[in-house]
């Protein structure tokens, strides 16, 4: 098959807000052996639909099948395979207050974020950036002994 190289892809799935719609989508991926790298979901304002963003990977042929199989699900309204997109991911990280706060703050600022909460023993920082930059941020943050890091999964919008 031509183009059997695996590539990373982000797809948006617009679905009817039904109780089992997310289960249908994840079951489809599991049942047909497709990968999910990340998945986010939230209702679309002022509608009865939700927007699901899935980061996945596979060959061109697999991507085509994923799109078509998703489309076959009755509550799926639209499937968008992103080509030209703006893609962002959010991450929250917790650092001991004993670390250099200004250094942590500068690091977060470099990745579109900042310190969002300061407690007695911990500070919480938030950044939102492209997924590969998020990866860099997490690497760089290791220096400041984070006690917890939570990634949000990507959201994307076509340009």
């Amino acid at each position: 098959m031509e183009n059997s190289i695996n590539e990373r892809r982000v797809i948006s799935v617009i679905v009817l807000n039904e109780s089992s719609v997310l289960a249908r989508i994840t079951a489809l991926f599991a049942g047909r052996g497709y990968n999910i790298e990340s998945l986010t979901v939230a209702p679309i304002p002022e509608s009865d639909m939700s927007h699901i963003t899935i980061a996945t990977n596979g060959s061109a042929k697999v991507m085509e099948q994923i799109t078509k199989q998703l489309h076959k699900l009755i509550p799926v309204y639209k499937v968008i395979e992103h080509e030209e997109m703006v893609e962002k991911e959010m991450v929250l990280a917790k650092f001991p207050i004993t670390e250099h706060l200004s250094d942590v703050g500068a690091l977060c600022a470099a990745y579109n974020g900042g310190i969002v909460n300061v407690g007695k023993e911990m500070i919480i920082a938030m950044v939102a950036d492209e997924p590969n930059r998020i990866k860099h941020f997490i690497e760089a943050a290791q220096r400041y002994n984070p006690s917890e890091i939570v990634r949000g999964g990507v959201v994307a919008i076509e340009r």
Partner: protein
Amino acid sequence: MQMSGAQMVCEAIIAEGVTTVFGYPGGAIMHVYDEIYKQNGFEHILNRHEQASVHAADGYARATGDVGVAMVTSGPGFTNAVTGLATAYMDSIPLVVISGQVPSQLIGTDGFQEIDAVGISRPCTKHNFLVRSLEELPRLMKEAFYIARSGRPGPVLIDVPKDITVDIGEFIYPDSVDIPTYKPTYKGNKRQIEKAVEAMKDAKKPLLYIGGGVVLSNASDLVRELAQKTQIPAVETLMARGVLGAKNPLLLGMLGMHGNYASNMAMSETDLVISLGARFDDRVTGKLSEFAKYADIIHVDIDAANIGKLVDVDYPIVGDITEVVEAMLPQLDGIDTDRFEAWRNILNRYDELHPQSFVDSDDVIKPQWAIERIGELVGENAIITSDVGQHQMWAAQHYPFDRPRQWINSGGLGTMGFGFPAALGAKKAFPEKTVINVTGDGSILMNMQELVTAAEYKIPVINLILNNHFLGMVRQWQTFFYEKRYSETDLSFQPNWKALAEACGGIGYDVTTKEEFDAAIKDAIEQDKVCFMNVAVNRFEDVLPMVPSGGALFNMMLPQKVEGK
């Protein structure tokens, strides 16, 4: 009108024009059964196992093209029905299966006979619903029928909690359905159709590859017209037997693992595959890289996901076969049919070289003989269902199917135990037709309790047991690929078939000679009672030709040549 949820279920079934429902009661669905007792809009058949209820509804649907309906209770009633759902799903058969569920407030508590029916059936239904409130029940019933029969058909499960069947509310059955996220494509793309037609005119060795979608779309007459007009030779899949009719000179036969020589060679040498409602199943294609290696491919399918799934397609057309072929026909006016004559001649020579033949015997009944014989005795008038195994393949190869929906079998899932209950469904739909389930000594036992159903409701179907005292198809693979180690396939221990049938209110025949065979068929048709016809056949007969699993279609194990043929 004010009524209970249970009554709404019945009213919806009646509003959909359903006249027969197959099912089995139990706690969670009892309110609905209470309403069934009170109504006379449809007949309910009590099968003796829920799997059989779903297969019977399936047989009904395959014979008629209408939606089949089955009803089961929660928990084990539902789990018994799962094989039936999966069978229908794999062959795209329109069904609505209604299951009872524990009361809403008990869902999630591991209540008695609670099981996650929508969870379990998700991968083997086209769609499913758990009804959340009485208000949505009429709409969901309407949507269930609509989804089952529209687009690429399939089974739909509607799971109804018991409390909702008790609640009383206003029943307004919707006239129409509007699901904004579900709009099947029926019309093929005009430009793509034009291009496909041009390719047909330019081809030298085109081949019509006809699948079960043609049956589902009720497009057989149009496809016959297409073949006639273009004089393009054709092959049928297991699911499409009967579409062109056995007498059609353009029909080469069935292709695939047990396809005939000419069909498989045609697919190997064609330069243009015109695929109509077929899905390139691995049992059809053999080794994919060798499949139709020299051909461009036109693929017409109502399900876009089928197109390009397994083979690369040059002319993809998403649409209903009926609409697409209708659009193609006028564009093919004046097509040069002589152009394909050399190709037809080659294929005819292939067929003369290796016809679909078998070596008959005077000492023992050959299963292929039995199939050809019923073809001669009941032929066009019969509906043939089958179970799964060698007998199924012999039926598909040797019966002279003349029309679509005459041949009913589980192709995609290959479900042993399908044939008998499916025959009950077909016979309910067409009481005037002779209905024969071609089965094996293994398969028939998987739903033999239906003898009781058939006897009680006087549904006289003939179970033709081609008895080889083996799980024959598995035995055949053991012979070829496992050095004859017959692990757990020897069925030498047998029931007394005649006594078994009689114990349940049917008739039994033990048949060992051709004379007895004819006499038994004649008697069975006259008696008009369900029967087991136990036909002793050659134990070690193999289904041939055979393409070993994963091999190229043109590498066939062929039957012995018959002298004088």
